[in-house]
């Protein structure tokens, strides 16, 4: 981030120079006014001398006051009028105030400009960071299954294997391909969603059948990983959303739950739903690795992959929950996540506008 560093230094330099300039203006004005007052006092001293000479020469006091309006004559003696000092002090204050306000405004405008540029640079840095994360993610998420796939194929080529071993390797390769396929879909989804390039329908979607379809696809995986998948969705609930988006949201939530439960060697996932006012809420509760309550905010960020407390590896791709959040935002719904802490399971809730009871 060379450009940012350079900008930081330039901005700092500009602020310092501006502060020094304003200080110089104030000092210069102070100095100028002191000089003016000095000159004025000298002039008045001379006027006093002249007035006293005129009075001594018998010129009437009124005439002297007319000739020298800054002086007053009391008891036959000339003195400086009280308003003169006050006028000079007011002039000094006015000039100092003018420079303070102008300088302050100047500094404020400068800081505002710097803030705007800073924001732009920060946004650019964020984009670069996101791109780096994306590359790191693609590296890790693709190269690992790719390495596993290559390893399985080369094992088949190099070694003499029993039919059972061949079957295991084939299953492993299929899993690797599925992982890569899922990753490609998620990346494409997330890119489309983050750029807003989606045209979502709004129609009544029966939630029970939408959830049932997705759960059915995960049942075998859940069974293999000793995970009990329980679904309790009232048949009459309909949400106002895009059917494909509902499918993606439910799929990602259940997959996230499976990924969280698998590292602890099995457990339970409960999918339930209820009507709440004008919304229909879907809750996916798991007995998996959970997360620190402080990480709640990070969960739905793009590329955030929380470390599983049970040590089963980083679970997830870092995109699933981001996709859920974006789709729910576009559907006018909301998302929330809660966990009592690492190792204590988690609950993810999403809510769509209700399409009415049937």
């Amino acid at each position, binding site marked *: 981030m060379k450009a940012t560093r350079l900008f930081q230094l330039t901005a700092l330099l500009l602020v310092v120079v501006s502060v020094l300039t304003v200080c110089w203006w104030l000092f210069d004005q102070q100095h100028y006014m002191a000089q003016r007052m000095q000159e004025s006092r000298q002039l008045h001293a001379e006027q006093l001398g002249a007035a006293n000479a005129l009075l001594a020469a018998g010129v009437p006091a009124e005439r002297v006051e007319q000739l020298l309006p800054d002086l007053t004559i009391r008891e036959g003696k000339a003195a400086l009028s009280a308003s003169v000092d006050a006028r000079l002090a007011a002039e000094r204050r006015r000039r100092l105030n003018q420079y303070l306000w102008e300088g302050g405004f100047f500094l404020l405008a400068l800081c505002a400009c710097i803030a705007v540029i800073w924001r732009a640079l920060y946004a650019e840095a964020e984009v670069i960071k996101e791109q780096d994360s994306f590359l790191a993610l693609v*590296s*890790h998420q693709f*190269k*690992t299954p790719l*390495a596993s796939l290559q*390893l399985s194929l080369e094992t088949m080529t190099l070694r003499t294997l029993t039919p059972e071993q061949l079957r295991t390797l084939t299953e492993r390769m299929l899993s690797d391909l599925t992982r890569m396929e899922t990753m490609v879909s998620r990346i494409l989804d997330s890119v489309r969603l983050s750029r807003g390039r989606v045209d979502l329908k709004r129609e009544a979607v029966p939630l029970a059948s939408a959830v049932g379809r997705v759960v059915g696809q995960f049942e075998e995986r859940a069974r293999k990983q000793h995970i009990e998948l329980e679904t309790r969705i009232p048949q009459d609930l309909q949400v106002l959303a895009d059917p494909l988006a509902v499918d993606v949201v439910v799929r990602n939530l259940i997959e996230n739950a499976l990924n969280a439960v698998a590292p602890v060697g099995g457990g339970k996932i409960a999918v339930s739903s209820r009507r709440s006012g004008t919304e229909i809420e879907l809750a996916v509760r798991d007995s998996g690795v959970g997360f620190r309550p402080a990480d709640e905010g990070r969960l739905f960020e793009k590329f955030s992959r929380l470390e599983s407390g049970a040590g089963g*590896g980083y679970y997830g791709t870092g995109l699933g929950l981001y996709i859920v959040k974006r789709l729910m935002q576009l559907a006018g719904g909301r998302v929330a996540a809660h966990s009592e802490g690492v190792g204590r399971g988690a609950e993810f809730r999403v809510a769509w506008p209700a399409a009415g009871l049937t």
Partner: protein
Amino acid sequence: MSAQGYRVLLVEDDPLLAAGLAENLRAEGLNVETEGDGNRAVEWFEHSSCDLIVLDVMLPGRDGFEVCRALRARGTMTPVLFLTARGDPADRVRGLEAGGDDYLAKPFHLQEFLLRVRAILRRWDWYKASTAPAAAATLRFAGNEVDFHAFRGRSWNGELQELTEKEAMILKVLAEKPGEIVSREDLLERVWGYDVFPSTRTVDNFILRLRKRFERDPANPRHFLTVWGVGYRFVAESEPTAAEGEP
């Protein structure tokens, strides 16, 4: 060389890749233990030991580089073969600086992986065998003393020197042939293997480090001498003339 009977700790968080690697290592006759978490890999060494660690870089808990550094810091000098999704040179150098012995970028060829595993075990075997006799376990020269088993030494000024595994191995290779020229390529081959480093300059850097540790005047070395364009020569006792050249 047969890899029979060696014990390998495989630290990989991806269960499918870990299973594939473990099966292949077992098929080579190695005893394989697996861990999927960086912290647990470090803990594993509290009660166990092995001949080789195959270490993934991106791990939960703590990454592979940190695991390697933690192990080296507590004196575990078991060779490490890094596996990583990143294969850029900077990352490669980071891995080797962390104390790794070799580095393999994913995806890799099974035969290359096994070749590297065998090469590391062979080098480690050579080091252990060559330092096994009591007489060969310690090197004394010009007031310096090096214990090849403990990877520790004491320099001429009494300062304690903690050697890295590579420094100890280079010193061992040089000390095996006192007074003879050992080429940089030879050192690379014996200590690292084939194509781990992009250039032989790496050897030069390690020699500089050894000079700093054991030479009275590292700028005018008397024990680790450069032979221009060829390699290095180790002289146990000071020669009347200074170095024959600088790298």
